Structure formats: C-alpha cells, structure tokens
C-alpha cells in the first residue's frame, strides 16, 4: 500500500503543516484548537495504518526512504522504522493527539500553543524515524525549541528559570552526543570510503564498519553518547533539570516531556549506542548498572519526600526510566526488549499521572499533598483515573507497568543474579509513596484547608484522553504480546550486533 508514497515523510511533516496553519490563524482560538486536533488525529491514524503493512517477522527497517541531501559530507535524508521505532512513533502520535485534546481549555495565546505542540510532534517523530545521524541530530534539537517556549510561556511561577535550565542543560548533552557522532563519522570514513566509496552519516553505513573501531575509541565514544542520551532520560546525577522543568511546565507539556522526550534518550541508547559500539557497551555495563540502580532508588526515595503531587510524579519518572536503563544494562535480548516495553508502558502511565496532576491543579487549585484530602467522594471520576494511574505505576499485575518491570527484573536476575535485590527494594517504596499519596489526597477526611465550594469533576476533554490511556494500560497489561511481538525482532538485531546473545 505504501510502496510508492513516502509515508514516513508524510507522517513527520503533516503536523508541521498543521502548525503553520495554527500559527497563521491568529486569535481564532476555536479554529486553532480544531486544526491542531484534526492534524494530530490524521497523523495518529496514518501511524496506525502503518501497522497494517508492517512486517512483524523481521527486525529490519521498513518503509525506508533515502534521498541524498548534502553529498559532499555524505549526509542523506533517510527515514525508516523497525519494531522499536514504530512503537515509539505510535506512542508519539497517540500522546500528542491526547495532549492536544487535554489542552482544550488553554485560552492564553492558543494558536501559538497549538502550533508549538505540533512542532514538538514533528521533532519527536523525526527522532524516532531518522536513519542518518545528521538528520537525527537536527530533529533531536528541534524538539528543544517548542518545549522551551511551552514551559516559558505557559508554565508555572518559576517558568523562566525552568525553561532556560531545561534548554541549556539538554543542549549541552546534545553537544556531547554531537562530538561522539562526529568522531564515529571520521573514524568510519576511511573504512567506508573503501567499502561503499564515500563517507557517510548514515546510521546503517556506520554500523557496517563500527565493529572495527578500536576498544579505546569505542569506550570513549560510548561514554559521550551515554552522557548525551543519559541526561535526556534522565539518569542520576544528571537529572536536576527534570523536576524543575516538570513542575513548571503546563500539563500537556509535562505529558509530552515525560511521555516522549525522556524516551528519546532511551531510544538513542538502544538505536545508536548499544548496537554501534558493542565493546563500548560491554565496558560500560558496570556503570550503566550502577547508575540504573542509583536512579531507581534515588527517584523512589525522592518521590517519597515530595509535598507537590507533580514533583512526586516527576521523581517517579526518574525511578522508572532507571528501570529502562537496567534492562539495557543486561545487554540481553530479553532485557533490552523489556526495557523498550517499559519505555512504552511508562509513556502511557506517566501521561495519566501528569494529566491527573493537571486536573487536580485546575479543579482544586493546588497540588500540595498536605492541603488535599478526602476528595474522592467529591470528584469520583477523577479519583478513579488517579487510582488506576497510581496502581499501574506501582506495578499492579494486570496492568502494563507490571509486565514491563517484571520482565526487566527477570532479565536482571539472569544477568546479574542477586544484585536484583537492590532495584527490587524500589518496588516496595514505589507502592509506598503512591498509596500514601492516594490516601492523603483522595481518601480520608475531607480537607478543610482549602476552599472546595467550586470543586467540579473532570471535564469531557480531560476524561476522554484519560479513559483512552487507562484502557490501553489494561489492554497492554493483559496482552503484552501485542507490543512485544513488534519489539522482539528488532531487539534480536540489536543483540546480534552486540554479539552476546
């Protein structure tokens, strides 16, 4: 069906057209929202259509497109998806659509807001599809600009500080990644010139010869890439931008930040760092393992201590992305596949969590846990969603988070044995802070510290995205194979390149 049309390019750039139209609409708020919603909906549908043509039995890249872009430097415009990429693409189009719907009540500079959301979608989609390092880096950086404005304009009280901190912190990390990319390009250049006749920034071209890179080189470059991707994930101790950015960002911004932008870091590891630099990856196993465990425990303990509901969720993201890294650190097929599945699971769950933080903020007027209490009878629907989200996030069996964490822990035991005890402590802590927070906000005696006379339950545009996500959380919890079948062939190739099956 898609043989003759550049379907991936269409999916990537459709939101850009929507963004231009939304920007141009000026003060027509209703229209801007509608345009954004329509364009994100079409993008979502197209990405789902890909599933019909996608060959699940192979881990190679499909729907590929490649055009020479800057011949002198061997840069091409190449797109393609494998199972991992496609899963992330669908997560992206889904979350963007839902986040735009959720933002139906944005009244401040609406057209710019909607335009920026769509530009953000372009950047994230591009990252998950690029097969050329230059292109990858461009999309990677393009993501920063709309997020900078989303936090800076529509954010909370300390938005300016948070926006600039986010921008610069992640930009520094990107630059480390850029140096690593350049190093790989020049190291591969002589080999590629004799092999395919010209130097290339193509990911697959460089992967052809990267096995011949010297050990020292691989370790150094892996280190730079690990830093670049790790900051985005984020890993402790490079996580400090995240709580600031999350707390100040508008709700939909937080949803995309946690749901998608953090995934970019993990995706970079599994797409670039692990398969391209296998010896570097092996050398880094102890470091990855240590940082993963540190992130998991630190994130969990820090969540326990938060008074702000959103900050608690933000720190829990650090903990859960640590689980992704733990899966990758095993370098085993199951572990990497489980890590990718955890990326997907966390994308769904964290969207619910941040949306609920937004709902509480909008309806109640504060997110301070000590000020809340006993809200469930007043806002039963919201309380239901919040309970589902919290339970999913703490890893209740039958929901998507459980499958992901269980698989990662199983792979961890295979690879590292009883070291598993350390990360598994976090399961108890996670359950602790979620249930405790739930108890203090939704249940117990009704709070008297704040004025609740205008308290309303969730609006339709908030309930709809939450409902969709909650259904998906349960569906993928019961039928994880739907996602695993897509992931597995691609991870087989990754581990094949790693050579440690």
């Amino acid at each position, binding site marked *: 069906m898609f043989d003759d049309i550049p379907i991936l390019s269409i999916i990537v750039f459709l939101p850009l057209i929507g963004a231009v139209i939304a920007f141009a609409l000026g003060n027509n708020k209703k229209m801007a929202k509608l345009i954004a919603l329509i364009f994100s909906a079409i993008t979502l549908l197209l990405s789902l259509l890909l599933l019909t043509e996608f060959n699940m039995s192979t881990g190679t890249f499909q729907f590929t497109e490649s055009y020479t872009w800057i011949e002198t430097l061997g840069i091409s415009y190449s797109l393609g998806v494998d199972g991992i990429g496609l899963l992330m693409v669908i997560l992206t189009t889904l979350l963007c659509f839902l986040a735009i719907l959720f933002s139906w009540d944005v009244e401040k500079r609406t057209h710019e807001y909607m335009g920026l959301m769509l530009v953000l979608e372009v950047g994230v989609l591009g990252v998950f599809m690029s097969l050329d390092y230059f292109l990858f880096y461009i999309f990677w950086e393009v993501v920063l600009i709309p997020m900078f404005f989303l936090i*800076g304009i529509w954010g909370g009280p300390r938005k300016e500080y948070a926006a*600039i901190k986010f921008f610069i912190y992640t930009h520094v990390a990107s630059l480390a990644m*850029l140096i690593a990319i350049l190093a790989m390009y020049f190291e591969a250049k002589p080999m590629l010139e004799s092999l395919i006749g010209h130097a290339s920034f193509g990911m697959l071209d460089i992967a052809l010869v990267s096995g011949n890179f010297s050990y020292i080189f691989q370790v150094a470059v892996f280190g730079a890439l690990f830093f670049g991707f790790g900051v985005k994930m984020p890993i402790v101790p490079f996580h400090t931008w995240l709580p600031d950015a999350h707390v100040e960002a508008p709700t939909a911004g937080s949803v995309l930040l946690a749901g998608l932008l953090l995934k970019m870091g993990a995706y970079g590891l599994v797409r670039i760092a692990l398969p391209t630099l296998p010896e570097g990856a092996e050398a880094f196993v102890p470091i990855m393992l240590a940082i993963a465990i540190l992130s998991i425990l630190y994130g969990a303990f820090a969540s326990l201590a938060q008074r702000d509901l959103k900050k608690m969720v933000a720190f829990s993201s650090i903990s859960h992305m640590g689980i992704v890294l733990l899966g990758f650190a095993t370098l085993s097929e199951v572990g990497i596949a489980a890590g990718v599945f955890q990326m997907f699971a966390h994308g769904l769950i964290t969207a619910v969590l941040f949306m609920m933080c937004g709902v509480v903020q909008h309806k109640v007027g504060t997110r301070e846990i000590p000020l809340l209490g006993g809200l469930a009878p007043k806002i039963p629907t919201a309380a239901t969603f919040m309970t589902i989200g919290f339970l999913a996030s703490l890893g209740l069996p039958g929901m998507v988070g459980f499958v992901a964490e269980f698989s990662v822990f199983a792979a961890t035991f295979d690879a590292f044995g009883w070291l598993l005890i350390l990360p598994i402590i976090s399961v108890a802590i996670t359950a602790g802070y979620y249930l405790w927070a739930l108890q203090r906000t939704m249940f117990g005696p009704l709070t008297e510290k704040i004025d609740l006379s205008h308290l309303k339950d969730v609006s339709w545009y908030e309930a709809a995205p939450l409902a969709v996500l909650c259904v998906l959380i349960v569906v993928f919890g019961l039928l994880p194979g739907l996602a695993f079948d897509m992931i597995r062939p691609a991870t087989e190739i990754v581990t094949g390149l790693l050579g440690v099956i």
Partner: protein
Amino acid sequence: MDLTAVLPEIIMIIFATVLPAVYLGTKNDKIVAGISIAGIVIAMAIVAQFLWNGASPVVFENLLQLDAFSALFMLVFLIVALYVVIASVRYIEKEKHLAEYYTLIMFATVGMMVVASATDLITLFVGIELTSLSSFALVGFRKKDKRGAEAATKYFVIGGLSSAISLYGISLLYGVTHTTNIAEIGAVVGDVTGLGPALYISLVMLIAGFGFKVAIVPFHMWAPDVYEGAPTPIASFLAAGSKKMGMVALFKVFLIGLLAIKADWEIAVAVIAIATMTLGNIMAVNQTSIKRMLAYSSIAQAGYILIVLPIATDYALMGGIFHIITHAFMKGGAFLIVAGLSMSVLGENIADYKGLAKRTPLLALGMAILLFALAGIPPLSGFASKFVLFSSAVDASMIPGDDWMIWLAIAGVLNSALSLYYYARVVKYMYIEKGPESKIKIPTTVAIAIFICVAATVIIGIYPEPIIDACQAAATAFFA
C-alpha cells in the same frame, strides 16, 4: 594589461566616485542610494558570473588573483555592502553628507575585495588600510553624536596602532625572506632553515596587528565600544564585513606564508582561539546593551573561526569560510534588526525587547531565528557551518600526534552551549516577558535587508549543499 581580475573593484570605484557629484546635481537621496546599489549589483553579477563559469584563476600583475576563493569572498562582502546600503537608506536620509556615506561604504568594500584577492603582502596591507580608513569615517559619521565620535576616535587610534604593528611585522618578514609575495614567502620559509629570531618577531607582530582587526583576545577591547557607538548599520557592516576581511588576511598570511613553520605557532593560535571564544561568550552573558552583547558574541564567533589556523586542512578552511558566510547573515541581520527598532524609538537595551513578539511579531520571529542560528540550533545555517567547522577539529584529531585538536572541538561546543544562554535570554524577553503593547513599524527598506538575512539563514540551514560546494571549491583554490 589584463584587467579581468580587478574588474569588480574598478566598477565599484567608478560608481563610488560619481556618487557625490550626482548628489550635488540632484540633491535626491533615493537616486544616490539607487546608484550605489546598482554599482554593487553590477560588481556582484561580474563576480557571480565568474564563479558560475568555473572560476579558473586570473592574475593581475602578480599582485591580485581572482579565483574561486577570492571571488566567493568578494561576493560575500558585496552582499554585506548591499544589505547595509539598503538598510541605511532611511537611517541616514536626513544627514548632510549622505552621498559620502555610500561612497565610504563602497570604498571600504573595495578594500575588502582587494584583501580577498591579494597575493602580495603590500596589496593586502593597502586593502586593509582602505577599509580601515573608510570605516573610521563611517563610525564617526554622525559627528555631533558624542558616543559615535568617541567610538571613531578609539577605533582610529587602535586601528592606526595595529596597522603600524602589522606593517612592522610585514617589513621584518620581507627582511628575512626578501620578498613580499605571500606564496614566495611560504616557499622561502619552507626551504630555508634558521631564519632566525626576526621571523618569530614578525610572527608575533602579525598576530597582534591582524588580531586587533579581527578583535581576538587580548586585542578585543575596542570592539564593543566601537560597535555600540557606531551607527547601527555600520556596526553590522563592521561585524559582517571588515572583521571577516581581517580573517581572510590571517588565512593568507598563516596558511600560505607561514604554513611551513606551523608547528611553532599552532599551539599559541589554538590557545588564542579558545581564549577568544570563551572570553567573548562570558562577557556577552552580562551585557545589558544588545549591541554590546552582539559585539561580544562577534568576538566569540571570531574565536570559532580562528580554529581553522591550527587545524589548517582543506576541510577546516572550508568550514571556516562557510561559517564566515553564515555569520555575515546571522550577525549582520541581528544588527539590522537592532538598527530598525532603534529607528522606531525602541531603545538598545535588552530590557527594551520585553514583549516584542506582541508588538512586532514578524520582526521578533526574525530575531529569534537569527539568534538561534547564532547559537547553532538546527536546522538553521549557523548549525550547518558550526557542524562543518567543529567537525574539522574532530577530523584532524584522528591523526596521531594531533589528537589534542579534539579540545578545539570540545571548547567550541561548550562555548556554543554557553552562548545559548544569552541568546535564549533575548528570546525569552521577546516572547515570554510582558512589555508595552503599542505596535512597532520599521522602515520598509530595513525590513527588506533583514528579510535577505533571515531568508539566507533559513535556506542555507535547510539546503547547505550549494554553499558547501562553493566553500569547498574556494578552499581547494586557496591551497592550490
């Protein structure tokens, strides 16, 4: 005598000299501006046609050579002159000596073009002086303006001093090598060993002399004062044009004349490059005046380009040329926006830019694009050129023994990150902070000039291939 090689310069000089006479006759500022634009465009057409035809080198009297390198730079300088003239039409329309203003801009441009094609130290020096003397007058063009006069005086004193120093360096070099031809100097320096301390003294003199022109650390102090005091279109001209001319002079002297003793100066120049970019960026962070901020950022950008000298490969020179071109549009355009806004009673402090996005959405968008490009955010031109430039350092570091050059790339990217802070701060003021609500309009001519710069920044960013090819050809011709 074959004049092909100097035809563009001759055209420029003819047009420049008739301008005051025309103004005397017509008293019409539009006609004068039109004629000067016509002269620049004709010269551009000749240069462009030469480039288009494959650019086999033409020599004029063994002093000037028109080839892919010099033609490309001529084109850049002419484009800069063009947008500066267009932007100036309304800026100086009430001045008494406006014909001389255009004449001076054109003479300064001729000087830059001579530097671009010079193959001899004397022509190189004459070109630099022509540009410098014209620029001194341009900076102080509004003689009643105290800050302008102060800037012009400062610029003149420093400029004169630096000319003297570089001339001294040139004379020493001549004394040692018995020639002023740059290529022959290169041959002598390469063949004859033990040229003695005079060679190294001349080396220091040349770094210092040209260093003043390019405003590299520690010879940079004049730049912010001069840029701040000069009429803003002229600040744009200095940053995008005459500074780049100094860079070309450095390329010629160091990469042709003194390449053979590169081992003796590469570390020193590398340290200067890193110091220049770092200090420029650090100083830019705290500025309250946007012109001073742009001036310091210009110093930093010169530091980036300076890494070409120690790396000294084809590829690095290509990156350096590429960055000079993109910078001419990014920085020139940013100064023009400041100029346009200052004509519409907006101050020149960064705080005056609060809420600009509401007051003039398109101009704010243009400014945001140019600033992000300067910071090296893709997919804009500044990213593409920094990408090539810094990658050349990574490339060079792959050679055993040169592995320290990776630090040039690392210093470059760290500085880019640092610079993002002050660029993003301006964007923050424009888009995030609240300011006055009243709308702002700027003169159409300035808007056209700004549009040229923004469009070039975006287009080169998305499709850099033609420019990269031209830079590649220029670099090849340079080392031929």
